[in-house]
């Protein structure tokens, strides 16, 4: 270890987290924990119907000041998300429903009282008359001729239809083999353990609306609230407290956020809404539901020649803000070719409006679905050509020698050795030994191994977001770094901490540049009044973008520290260096406090030529090539399937991942495990089912199964560290990757296990019922499963 403690605390250190101390003593402060005199709690009356005209709304006259309808919200604009993509249809998402409701759970009225229980009682004082309309409960339903229209002015139920064709017809005609698969992922709910919450009050002294909201994107929320409420951005301060998990659910402007902010701005008093779990399950079921129909063409060895795909996304009733209703389909179409070399590709995507909650970008966005589909295609091809799936996978992966590599959808893979990670995962899971052993265990269960390889485009840059037509395009993230008079370092960044440990990792980066001891570095995040702009914590961008900004700002401050120190030590700036928490020139040294004191309190000690910007700097950052830096991984799973009950037990789970330079390997592992746990939820347990009337069928955590400690394996992980040539320190993002592969790897393993029965599951979650159904379907003809997809 070097004497200056760089390894112990800087980039690469398994530094303990700064955020732990408060949480371990129950002193974290979440929206629901805030106490404020005069605080009033808000409850929403939500639509019980999926699709209906509102005929009447009534409240008793003495409740005019504690029950509110949309008509009362004077000056509030609906949430409207525009897109620059041609053909995209814009929805008007009302803060409270006006003349129509479009999903079960849509807010219709807002009730206010001194506590939540009384506010909920008030809901019973409201009467709403509905005239029920036929509900659109599926993509197929939404696309049917003459189907009921959610937004009649559109003329159909499509937010957007896209088409990409590199020219595939010739290749298809001559391809030696082909496979055809239909696959789908269930609708899901994201479930941060802390639900959404927002508390807003009016600060008379600052003449400002202050919003404490549980969000990943405080600076964006400020912009969104300003737009909906018609208040200048300078008059809004968004100051998020601790956030109990985000996963994408909290990167949106929610109607409830606007409504509560309106109350505070109107009545100049504090108001709060905290989402309960039932609200989350019903009104927040907004992710993952994709349908795939893919035909893939390959040579006799299984080398991919062309892909012809159709993707439908059950997009829900409205577009969320700011990510639009077509982000999911755009990402699906763009990411389907995955980490593979592919020469010909055709893809049509449909973003279908349905009577369900508006679709939102859940951890991994479209990629868990895309990976699930593509990896099954690879396995089906392998089965068709009679080779091991991992071999076919390896032969199709973009090799290290081709890096950097631009693929058919113009994704620019910056660095890495994808096949090596696959082979390493195969060895970790012990494929050869497994193949030499029995296909069934002593309990009669079928055994299988499955793989999934993927890339995780992280820190997508300006161009990428612009190509998705987003109304707000992220560019530079900024950070501010300052040495205090007593020699500590203050770091401020507009990104927010949601559990991903940025208070620690950003401090590690600042330490790397300044060598100020980690315990003397303090990180402030998110508060729009105290931090420079960041578009926020999403798309695995935090550590790359904000990390880059902190690195730059800290580098600037480090230079200024050195020049003042050099003057104090009477040497040239080039002669000073950081070591052991001090600033040295040969054997002489000064402390950070000496430097701080000189600038702030003893300017008589400063050099004539001192930089008058002082010991603080704000810098902006985005990578030189801003098409995103690509992390990648292979997941391998070994499991047992009980053919009688359909129950699956995961026996071993191995991950080989590469996210470039790891700032804190402990946190990388935590992100990966946590993501993989959610991916296993997608693969085996989690589902928000709807009936034909688009009524949600899961409204408690007894209906919706979140993976608990007994359902999850002890993950094993191995790292590679291929630096990105484009980002500061070679860092890549890692927030989402863990969640991408499990549905694919697990379904491939289940299908490997069931291959003696010729059965294949093509849906997640692969519930006991779906597995048994697949086996039953395969039984009549022991030859080829009718829906199994490889028949052709």
């Amino acid at each position, binding site marked *: 270890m070097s004497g200056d403690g760089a390894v112990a605390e800087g980039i690469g250190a398994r530094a303990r987290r700064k955020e732990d101390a408060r949480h371990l003593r129950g002193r974290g402060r979440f929206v629901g924990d805030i106490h404020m005199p005069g605080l009033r709690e808000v409850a929403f009356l939500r639509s019980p119907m999926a699709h209906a005209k509102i005929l009447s709304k009534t409240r008793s006259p003495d409740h005019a000041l504690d029950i509110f309808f949309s008509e009362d919200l004077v000056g509030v604009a609906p949430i409207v998300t525009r897109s620059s993509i041609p053909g995209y249809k814009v929805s008007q998402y009302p803060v409270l429903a006006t003349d129509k409701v479009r999903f079960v759970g849509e807010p219709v009225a807002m009730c206010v009282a001194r*506590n939540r229980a009384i506010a909920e009682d008030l809901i019973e004082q409201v009467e709403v008359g509905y005239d029920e309309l036929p509900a659109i409960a599926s993509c197929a339903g939404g696309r049917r001729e003459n189907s009921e229209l959610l937004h009649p002015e559109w003329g159909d139920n499509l937010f957007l239809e896209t088409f990409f064709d590199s020219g595939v017809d010739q290749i298809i005609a001559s391809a030696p083999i082909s496979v055809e698969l239909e696959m789908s992922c269930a609708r899901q709910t994201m479930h941060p*353990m802390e639900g959404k919450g927002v508390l807003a009050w009016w600060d008379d002294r600052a003449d400002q609306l202050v919003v404490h909201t549980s969000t990943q994107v405080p600076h964006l929320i400020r912009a969104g609230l300003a737009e909906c409420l018609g208040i200048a951005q300078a008059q809004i301060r968004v100051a998020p407290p601790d956030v109990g*998990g985000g996963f994408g659910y909290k990167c949106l402007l929610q109607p409830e956020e606007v409504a509560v902010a309106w109350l505070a701005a109107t009545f100049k008093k504090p108001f709060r809404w905290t989402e309960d779990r039932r609200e989350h399950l019903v009104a927040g079921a907004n992710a993952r539901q994709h349908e795939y129909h893919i035909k893939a063409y390959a040579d006799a060895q299984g080398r991919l020649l062309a892909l012809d795909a159709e993707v439908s996304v059950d997009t829900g009733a409205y577009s969320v803000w700011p990510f639009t209703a077509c982000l999911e389909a755009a990402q699906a179409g763009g990411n389907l070719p995955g980490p593979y070399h592919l020469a010909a590709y055709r893809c049509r995507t449909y973003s279908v409006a349905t009577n369900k909650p508006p679709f939102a970008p859940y951890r991994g966005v479209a990629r868990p679905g895309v990976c699930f589909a593509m990896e099954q295609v690879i396995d089906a091809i392998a089965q068709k050509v009679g080779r091991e799936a991992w071999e076919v996978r390896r032969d199709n992966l973009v090799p290290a020698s081709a890096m950097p590599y631009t693929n058919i959808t113009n994704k620019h893979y910056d660095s890495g050795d994808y096949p090596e990670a696959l082979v390493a995962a195969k060895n970790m899971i012990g494929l050869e030994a497994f193949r030499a052993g029995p296909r069934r265990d002593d309990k009669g*269960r079928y055994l299988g191994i499955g793989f999934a390889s993927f890339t995780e485009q992280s820190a997508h840059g300006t161009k990428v977001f612009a190509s998705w037509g987003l109304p707000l395009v992220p560019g530079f993230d900024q950070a501010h770094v300052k040495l205090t008079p007593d020699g500590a370092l203050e770091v401020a960044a507009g990104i927010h901490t949601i559990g991903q440990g940025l208070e620690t990792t950003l401090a590690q980066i600042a330490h790397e540049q300044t060598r100020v001891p980690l315990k003397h570095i303090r990180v402030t995040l998110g508060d729009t009044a105290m931090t420079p702009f960041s578009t926020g914590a999403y798309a695995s961008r935090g550590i790359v973008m904000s990390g880059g900004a902190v690195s730059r700002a800290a580098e600037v401050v480090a230079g200024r520290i050195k020049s003042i120190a050099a003057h104090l030590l009477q040497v040239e700036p080039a002669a000073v260096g950081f070591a052991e928490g001090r600033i040295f020139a040969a054997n002489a040294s000064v402390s950070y406090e000496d430097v701080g004191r000189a600038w702030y309190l003893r300017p008589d000690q400063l050099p004539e030529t001192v930089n008058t910007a002082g010991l603080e700097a704000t810098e902006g950052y985005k990578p030189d090539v801003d098409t995103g830096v690509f992390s990648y991984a292979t997941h391998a799973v070994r499991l047992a399937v009980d053919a009688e009950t*359909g129950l699956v037990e995961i026996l071993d789970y191995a991950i080989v991942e590469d996210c470039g330079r790891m700032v804190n390997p402990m946190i990388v592992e935590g992100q990966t*495990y946590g993501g993989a746990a959610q991916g296993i939820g997608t693969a085996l347990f989690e589902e928000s089912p709807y009936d034909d009337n688009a009524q949600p069928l899961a409204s408690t*955590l007894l209906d919706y199964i979140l993976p608990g400690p007994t359902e999850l394996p002890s993950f094993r992980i191995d790292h590679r560290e291929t630096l990105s040539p484009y980002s500061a320190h070679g860092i890549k993002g890692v927030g989402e990757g863990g969640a991408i592969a499990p549905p694919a790897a697990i379904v491939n393993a289940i299908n490997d296990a069931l291959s003696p029965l010729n059965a294949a599951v093509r849906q997640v979650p692969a519930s006991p019922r779906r597995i048994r159904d697949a086996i039953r379907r395969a039984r009549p003809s022991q030859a080829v499963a009718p829906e199994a997809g490889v028949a052709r």
Partner: protein
Amino acid sequence: MTQVSMTVNGGAVVADVEPRTLLADFLRGEMQLTGTHLGCEQGVCGACTVVLDGRIQRSCITFAADCDGADVTTIEGFDDDPTMEELREAFSEHHALQCGFCTPGMLTTARDIVLRLGDIDERALREELSGNLCRCTGYVGIVAAIKKVATGRSPTSRPRWHRSSSGSRAQGCRLRRLRRQVPPSRGRRLQPWQLQSVDPRAARQSRNGCR
């Protein structure tokens, strides 16, 4: 309103509560002890776990009015508890928390496991923990941290008031839902190992009934 007197974190409390007021809301609201978190208010997630008369209990499904004469300890009351100190240290070392929302409940359950059962194997540990949900960590760090504190420890001689935490009960119910998709035995009963592949306790609980 009902008057209740209880001991909260060692201090005597007398308060008027509505019959419907839940212990969690009382602690978080009146007492301003906001370390007790509410993740589901459905008795499933365990974020609201507190110690009530020596046993862990979900405060979101416990009425405050039922706690007359009770001794309640919340996460804030464990500041000086030596076992909790070890757990806090181990949780930080093993990255057993990310957002921290589940953490107070996890720690409270973990302390109960460690004291009540001492050194147990990982499978048993996961089972005991199964009434607490964490959405961030995948339980890897949590299990490792508790294991570290439990290693070499023998169960305390405290009264053996229950075999399983209230938490595991809820998990049992959840999994029973999953299991409902298992077909009715066609001529033969499900074997215990078939259930064990998910959670052995669930088998017992579905026999005993959840409620």
